[in-house]
Structure formats: C-alpha cells, structure tokens
C-alpha cells in the first residue's frame, strides 16, 4: 500500500518537474497550473528546482544581446545578388535546387547504364557468347542481291559469246561442281553438256568481276581459297535459272592476277555454297550489332561520369 502511494507520488513528482519550465513561462492550462502550485507547496525539491530554473531564465534574458554590426536595410543593388551571399545561380536555378536536380539525373542515368550492362551480360551468358544479329539482315541481303545480279550479267554476257572448241577442263570441272553442289540429286542435263564452255577471256572477266565488289574484296585479300569460296555470291535459284557454269575462283586466284591458273588434279574442290543469309548475318554482326551496343554502353558510362563530376561541382557551390 505504501509502495503504491510512493510510486504514485514519485510519478507525480516527475511529471511536475517536466512542467516547471512551462509553468515558469506561463504556458500551462489552469488545471495544470493549480496542480503544480499544489505540489510545489508540499515538495521542497520541486520548489528548489523551480528557483534554479527561474534564475537561469533571468540570466538568459539578462545577458546583453550583441549590438547589430550594421543596418540590414535592403538596397536595390542587394536584390540583384541572389540570396545566399556569394553563391551563384546554377543553370538558372538556385544552387540547392540545381544540386537536387543533378543528383536525380545522375541517379537515373546510372540506373539506365547498369540495366544496359546487366542486360548485355545476361544476353551473353544466355547465348553462350554468340551474339545475335542486331542489324536488319534483310537490307544487307538486298545489297548482296544487287551485287549478285551484276556479276551474273557479266558472266552471262561472256557465256553468250563462246569460242568453239575451247571446252577447257576448268570449265567442265566447275560445271560439274556447281551441279553437284546446287542440285546433288539432279542428273546433268544434256543442254548443259552441249553448251559451249566460256572462253578464257570470259572466265578472266568473271573472276575479276567477282573480285571487285566491295563485299568480296575484303575476304579476297586474305588470299585464302577457303574464304573466297565461302564468300561466293549467288543463290541456288540463281544457279538453277542460269544453268551456266559460274567461274569459281581457284585458291590462287587474286584480283591482281589476270591469268587464270589451270586446274590441277591436286587442287582442292571448292567448298559448298552457304546460304547468303548467313553471310549477311555474319557481316551484320561484325559491323553493326556489337558496335552499336558497345557504343551505347560507352556513351552512357561517359554520361554518368560527366554528370557525377557536375553534381560534385554543384555540391561544392552549396552555401
């Protein structure tokens, strides 16, 4: 019972102590004020506490305030200087606002950069390092078709002016290889056999025509027969429609050697023709796909760095 009363008394004492400053400042409600006064009449500790607080307040008010060093009247010239003293406006904004905007912009670009890099990495892992084509394959194929048409026209022109009695072993062998590759199941037609083989001049022209186009020139300069044969242009349909032997460059054929090299029994057979879409796909990858993604990553990364530097500069401009 006594403990309960003591506890109640102690709680009341602590509550009153916290109200003493407000009591001193006259900020208590009438009921609270009466309660404090009633407690102060009984509690010497609280009375002493109030006395020291009153003394502190008196000294705080009594302490002489510093004299103002100058008049703070605003001149018209002061209004031309932005608030904040020496701090200048940044991008037409207050330094605080400009800093906030720059922080937001930097964060956004950094997130975009991180997403791009993460996406690139995930795609690399998912495709096992093989990059899918990023550029439109169809457009590249159209360009290839134009080159093929031009070469075919030149070859056909040469074929239409045959030289009788010059059925060279090269022409016959090339014809057989083409038929074997393009139409493996078809038997050689008599028309093909009766067709006179192209003349030496025609073959030479065809070889040069093949070597000149830009698409083939890069690979041809490698001077590897395999590469040249893989880069051979034309579709199976083109070969079927023409039914003419297309001169296939030999491994030693280069644009700078006008004289065709006669075939030898040991010369390797030309490689099989790949569908032209694969050629276009590979070129697109190497020229457009990877570089576009890398350029985007490098650009965003550079932008993040620039924004970070500008943000730090803005931070230093803060008043």
């Amino acid at each position, binding site marked *: 019972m006594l403990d309960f009363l003591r506890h109640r008394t102690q709680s009341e004492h602590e509550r009153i102590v*916290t109200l*003493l*400053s*407000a009591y001193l*400042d006259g*900020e208590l409600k009438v009921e609270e004020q009466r309660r404090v006064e009633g407690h102060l009449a009984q509690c010497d500790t609280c009375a002493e506490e109030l*006395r*020291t*607080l009153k*003394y*502190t*307040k008196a*000294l*705080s*008010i*009594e*302490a*002489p*305030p*510093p*004299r*103002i*060093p*100058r*008049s*703070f*009247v*605003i001149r*018209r010239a*002061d*209004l031309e*200087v932005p*608030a*904040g*003293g020496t701090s200048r406006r940044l991008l037409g904004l207050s330094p605080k606002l400009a800093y906030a905007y720059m922080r937001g912009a930097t964060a956004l670009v950094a997130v975009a950069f991180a997403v791009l890099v993460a996406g690139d990495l995930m795609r690399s892992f998912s495709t096992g390092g093989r990059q899918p084509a990023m550029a439109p394959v169809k457009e590249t194929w159209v360009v290839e078709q134009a080159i093929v048409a031009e070469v075919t026209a030149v070859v056909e022109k040469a074929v239409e002016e045959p030289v009788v009695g010059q059925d060279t072993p090269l022409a016959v062998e090339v014809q057989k290889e083409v038929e074997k590759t393009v139409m493996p199941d078809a038997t050689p037609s008599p028309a093909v056999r009766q067709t006179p083989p192209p003349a030496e001049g025609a073959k030479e022209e065809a070889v040069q025509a093949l070597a000149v186009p830009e698409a083939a020139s890069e690979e041809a300069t490698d001077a590897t027969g395999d590469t040249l044969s893989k880069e051979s242009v034309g579709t199976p349909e083109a070969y079927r429609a023409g039914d003419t032997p297309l001169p296939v460059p030999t491994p030693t054929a280069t644009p700078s050697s006008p004289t065709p090299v006669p075939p030898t029994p040991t010369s390797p057979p030309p490689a099989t023709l790949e569908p032209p879409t694969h050629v276009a796909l590979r070129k697109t990858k190497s020229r457009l796909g990877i570089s576009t993604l890398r350029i985007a990553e490098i650009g965003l990364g550079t932008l993040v760095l620039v924004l970070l530097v500008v943000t730090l500069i803005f931070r230093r401009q*803060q*008043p």
Partner: protein
Amino acid sequence: MEEQALVAATQKGDHDAFNQLVIHYQNLAYHVAYRIVSDADAAADATQDAFLRAYRAINQYRGGSFKAWLLRIVTNTCYDQLRAKKRRPTASLEALLVTDPTPGSSFVDQAESPETYAERQELSRIIQAGINALPSDQRTVLALCDVAGMSYQEIAEVTQASLGTVKSRIHRARTKLRDYLLAQQELLPAQYRLRSDT
C-alpha cells in the same frame, strides 16, 4: 503604418515598405541568429540573407504572425549556415587576432560604468558558452522563448514542431543551461551568482 499594411505594400512592390519592417525587426532577428549560430559575423550574414529571402518570398506570406513567419526564415537560414560551417569548417583570421571576442565590444554604453559593462559582457560570454553546448534545436527554441519572447504556440509554428515537442525541448534546454551555470558559479560576477537564501 501598421505591420500588415507594410506587408501588403511590399507585396505590391514597395521596396521602402519592406525596409521599414527590416528596421523594426533587425535587432530581434540578429539576436536570435546570434544565439543559434554563436558567431557575430555568421549571425550578420544569416540575418542579411534572411531579410533578402523574406523580401523575395513575401508573396508566399499568407497572413498570421509576420514575426513568426520572419523568424522561421531566420532560423532556417541559420540552420543553412550551421550546415555549411559543418561541411567547410574554417578558422577566421580575425578571430585569431581579436583579443576580445565579445560581440558588440566596440559599442560601449556611455551610461554604464566600465565595471558594470565588463561584468555584463562576462555574463554574456558565459551564457553564450552554455548555449553553445546545447543541440541546435534546443538552442533555437530557447532563443525564440527567451530572446524573442514568443509563446510556445508561436515557437511551434516557427519550428514546425508539435506543442509537446516544444515544451519538452525548452525544459531540457533550460535544465542543461542551469546545470552549466551552476557549475560556472565562481566565474560569474558576484551579482549574478545564485544565492542560497533566495
């Protein structure tokens, strides 16, 4: 002209009307600023900056106590000063050279004796040292209460805190300052010491 009329005139672009308000409030604004930032030069800069901010933002004033609105700008400017000082702490060359750092020491009231003046300056120095030991939020409420003489409700509006928070902050600030002053009794001038019989 009444205060609200001066404010209305300022809102219409009357620059001189605002300067009348500046003249009326500049002592109070500077004293509050000095209590918060505890440095004469910084307080002067904060006060000037606060008046400029108030002039530019006068159209945002929507009535009520102009004094509370102005002192809110003053306290916010002081907080900006404190933050900037915390980021870039600098030692003033003048502070190292001046032997008497008491603010306003060059302005001696001719009516009081040199002894009284010295005692009051000593009291001011000790009080300010005790206030410096308080956190900035307690310093602010104590300055607004003791220097500006504002009610708890006005202080709550200025600091944008609840009435209960203001009440407890003032009590804690005053208790800490009391403890500091009691510990410094010997340093206080005799007339300002706490006597046991009173």
